[in-house]
């Protein structure tokens, strides 16, 4: 059994900007599939 633990009142770490950028680049504000389809190239 592998134990994995996180606490929501725990240490906040730098990193939210990376998620923000990923969301903008890959997901977009106007719908996941629409933007992601452009990555496929077909």
């Amino acid at each position: 059994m592998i134990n994995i633990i996180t606490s929501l009142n725990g240490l906040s770490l730098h990193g939210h900007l990376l998620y923000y950028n990923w969301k903008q680049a890959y997901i977009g504000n106007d719908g996941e599939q629409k933007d992601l389809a452009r990555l496929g190239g077909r």
Partner: protein
Amino acid sequence: MASYPKIKNIPIVIGESDPEGCAACGMATNPSNAYRNGTMYSSYTAASFARKYLLSDFSGVNLMGAVSWSFEFENQPWFYGFRDLATNGVDKPVLNVFRMFGKMTGQRISATSDRMYPLKTVLDSSIRSKTDIGVLASRDSRSASVMIWNYHDDDEQGSPELIKLSINHLPAKIVTVIHYRIDNEHSNAYELWKKMGSPQQLTAIQITELEKAGRLQTLGKAVKLFSKNGSVIINTSLPRQAVSLVKLNW
């Protein structure tokens, strides 16, 4: 950079983040690049991108982001082993890791796993003994996200590991849990394509089936859980090369 106060806080963007050498080399010339089609690439991406945060913490620098240095190749064979996130418009498993990352809103928070390799070991000798069962977590005002992966440098399948995930200090008594999964049975168009006989001439129906199989999928339906003293425990199993994202909403 951290040793120079003037530039210590300048945001760093890793402009070309990739695992190896030649993006445009397919399996015909580089058979080992077949790993890019399946769950080796997705689990590697989870394990390695998480280490960028840890390396940033360790170095005391301001990591802003990273660009997956992968490309788009027009008019090429299906699942040819290029470093791309989709093949002929069908999403590969690795793309679903980025979909998972995109769902991890809010602020990164600390999380531990007793089977996660220390950063120094990964830097010194990579992941060559037991598999790396690691974790990356974030929280927002109304949600929390926990990504877990099971990665090893050898491209082999393996039996699932039992996982006990504890999430503490929840601010709500009832949470909705959605469990996203990338493995051989979920979010994986490559495995379906192989079951089809690895065709290069596909029917419209086959393409539709692959497009559906390539999307990010859940491990069952969303469930509601009651927290006990602010905690929930989620037991699951994680096959080698699988990635999970457990998302809690309240």
